[in-house]
């Protein structure tokens, strides 16, 4: 049992660590801001989940205590990560950051930017 739990801890920690690392690698590797955003929002969140699971298991190793409060951290991350991502991408749109050329849906981007920075007149935004 103990042994099994240790393996689980090790597994989750490694999994989490890898995802965290992958998220950060994505941050560095991706060519434009919008693509960079994906790594941290998703991979890192999952990585955190892994590490927290590892932690839960680890602290539950000792017989007299269980540790489940790490779930809270996951909960908060799940709530907050989309918001951060959303705000960031809004900022990027506002700053008219350019996506790399092969990005499809250029007109959506333009529309988003136009909307974000209030350049178009008010009524123009409510079309579509």
């Amino acid at each position, binding site marked *: 049992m103990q042994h099994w739990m240790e393996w689980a801890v090790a597994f989750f920690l490694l999994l989490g660590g890898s995802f965290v690392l992958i998220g950060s690698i994505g941050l560095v590797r991706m060519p434009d801001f919008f693509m960079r955003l994906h790594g941290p929002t998703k991979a890192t969140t999952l990585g955190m989940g892994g590490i927290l699971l590892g932690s839960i298991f680890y602290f539950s190793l000792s017989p007299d205590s269980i540790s489940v409060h790490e779930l809270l951290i996951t909960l908060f991350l799940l709530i907050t990560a989309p918001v951060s991502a*959303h705000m960031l991408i809004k900022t990027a749109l506002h700053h008219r950051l350019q996506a790399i050329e092969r990005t499809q849906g250029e007109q959506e981007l333009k529309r988003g930017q136009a909307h974000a920075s209030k350049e178009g007149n008010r009524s123009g935004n409510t079309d579509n």
Partner: protein
Amino acid sequence: MILAWILLLPLLGTLVPLLAANWRRSACALATAIPPAIALMLLLYHGSAVFAGETLRYTLGWIPLLGLDISIRLDGLAFLFSLLILGIGLLIILYARYYLSEQDSMPRFYAYLMLFMTAMMGIVLSNNVLQLWMFWELTSISSFLLISFWWHKSEARRGARMALAITGAGGLCLLAALLLLGQITGSYDLDVILASGAVIREHGWYPLVLVLFLLGCFTKSAQFPFHFWLPNAMAAPTPVSAYLHSATMVKAGIFLLARFYPAMAGTDLWFLLVSITGLTTLLVGAYLALFKHDLKGLLAYSTISHLGLITLLFGMGTDLAAVAGVFHIINHATFKASLFMAAGIIDHESGSRDMRKLNGLWHFMPITATLAMVAAAAMAGVPLLNGFLSKEMFFAETLHQHLLGSLSWIIPVLATIAAIFSVAYSMRFIHDVFFNGKPKGLTKTPHEPPRYMRMPVEVLVVLCILVGVAPGYVIGDLLQAASFSVLGGTVPEYSLAIWHGFNLPLLMSVVALAAGSLIYINRKHLFDFQNTLPGVDALTAFEQLMAALAKRCQQFYNWLDNGSLQRYMVFVLLAIIVLAGAPLLELDTLFGGRPELPVDAVNATGAAMLLISAFATVVFHRQRVVALLMISVVGLMVSIAFTRFSAPDLALTQLSVEVVTIILLMLALFFLPHKTPKQSSPTRVLRDIGLASMVGVVIGSISYAIMTRPFNTISDYFLANAKTGGGGTNVVNVILVDFRGFDTMGEIAVLGIAALGIFKLLTRIPVFKPSSDGEGRPWARERHPLLLATVAQSILPMALMVSVFIFFRGHNLPGGGFIAGLITAVAIILLYISQGVDWVKARMNIEYQRVVAIGLLIALLTGLASLLFNRPFLTSWFDYFKLPLFGEIELASAIAFDLGVYITVVGATLLILASLGKMTTSHRPTHQEPT
């Protein structure tokens, strides 16, 4: 005690005119005269004792620590001076009653005059040198007020200031001298000092003391080269001049010479300094007096000259000379006071003091003219008048000294020359004013003054004549007693007879009279000669000097303090480098012997990140937002470091403060430029880098040295007593709310006060409200992004839950009221960010300053509660209760204290951030609205 009243009465007299301010003028004058009159009577009451050679004393303890007592000493010299001060003072009161016009404030004048009289009486009656100095300075102040009585006249103001500056400077020298005397003799008692003449004269400091002492005397007595203030003090009303420059103020210096004669005189240095100064002053004054067209100017220089004469007499160091000096003090006081008053009458009744305009007044005011002529004759040393007698004695003494060796003959010669000029200016005074044709260009027709205005002059002139005719009867005793106290016991034989037979002094007098007349008759050539000399107006020169001094001061000041904060900072940093760095250089090795902890890769990474981000903050400091991001990395790393080194409480606090700080800085950046322009020159940057790295090295080295040293601390006590005495297992928290709860109370007070201050700063602030960001992009249209708003609303209850949790566990585990408060505040701030001020205000309309106050009050009352149990403030209380079903729970007063902390933190943080946010809520300029 009666002695004390002699001093006290004039002091009380200062108040009398103020109380009698609304009375009629005569009544006011009369009332003012009463106290000095009584004082005079009391003085005379003591006369017999003093004439018998007694010295009367009265002492009252005042400041024993300083050796300063109220101590009065009435001996012959003091008696003589008191007599002059009170007597002439009374006459001046009478005279001023008529002299002052309706526009002048008589009560004010009398009050100043009485103050001055008090000061003079204080000087002459002091038996304690510090007390003497006190009154000495008081004369400077009161004379300043008197000279500037007509403050609307520029020359009065300037003259007064000059007099104050010169006599003030002298006073400070005198203070030094007196204190040194006190140190030499071990007492500030005049009796002791006068009795220790030998000790003083042989002491190594004697030259220094003497010079300082004489500086005090000479400035006060207008001795060359400090004489120039006196003529310029003539801007004062004439009663003031008559009082100050005949019998009192200028005589104070002479008095001091006489008073300390037994203690200080009798050395070659004394002789050289005093007699040469006196002689020079005598000559310069006499010579210059002749050329003054202003009546009072002439008298002023004549005063200088006569003061020089007296000084010379005291300087010669022989007993007889001293007697002559004392005698001349009396004579000069009488004739000079009457002359000043006569000049005042002339000025008052004819409207001018210019001798080029005043001519032939004999026809208009014969009585006054007669009186003035008698007094002037006394000044010139005409026989049968008092001036003659003392001048004869003076001549005699000049002949009897041999201190200059083979050059000794020069003194009588110079004395005669001075006397010649003295005769000449006296003649000018008489002839130019009362004869010499008709008045020119006077604005009013001169006439005799009111009866009682002339009376003081009459009294004094009668005295001049009486003394001149029958000196022995009139003032023999007085002179004897005064000389007795000056010489300290042994008065030489002297004769006060009018006639000593044909002798050399008489010849000198005759020569003086004859040559003086001759010079006066041929004065035109001398005037022409004098006009060719460059004239220096002392007042202008002095003012220019002062202006130049002020300008230099300003230049220096502005050079040192250029108003640049950066420079001030540099001084602070230099101080750190020097003061903290210097001791380090004396250390052999920084390492203190405590083994270092091992470094692992993770810690090294953390440190590297800290260093890199700190460096990046500096590099990017011009792009402010980037710098902000960088410094939050620093903050994050610091928190992680705290975590790493077993300080979870610190990490929590640092993190939450970090977030609030960043929000704050973001808020602030809206109102500040987003970029810092490049301004510092490369050399400046280089200098700053140098300074910064030196400070860094010093601080880092100290830190290293401390960390590697073994250490004993009081902390073990906290570890041992946290649970048993404080009821908590989180020692840090127990320290905060219990062991050092007082600190925490101060700390939350700081937070609360800062919030109040910020609120204050933001009221009525004229803000810049940029309508686009630094790059010129207009602001986004969406104020409250939907996602954020919704999430913020759901985060709030969870955050509250967490903060309750953190709050309650604080006493036993990391957490506590402060962190809980910050979490709550941040959650609410998130609402502000996501929904705006109006939205929040519609749902929660609380005045945060009140929240702050309540929080602090809770903390305070918790602390005070222990007083009810007669325990010291903030004594904590805790206990464990058994509840059925729920088991044991702990209740502690620290929880209540922490609640206060919590509420204060919430209130303060919200007050700071929300009031900052509130600034822009209304009328936000936008891109589309015309601005």
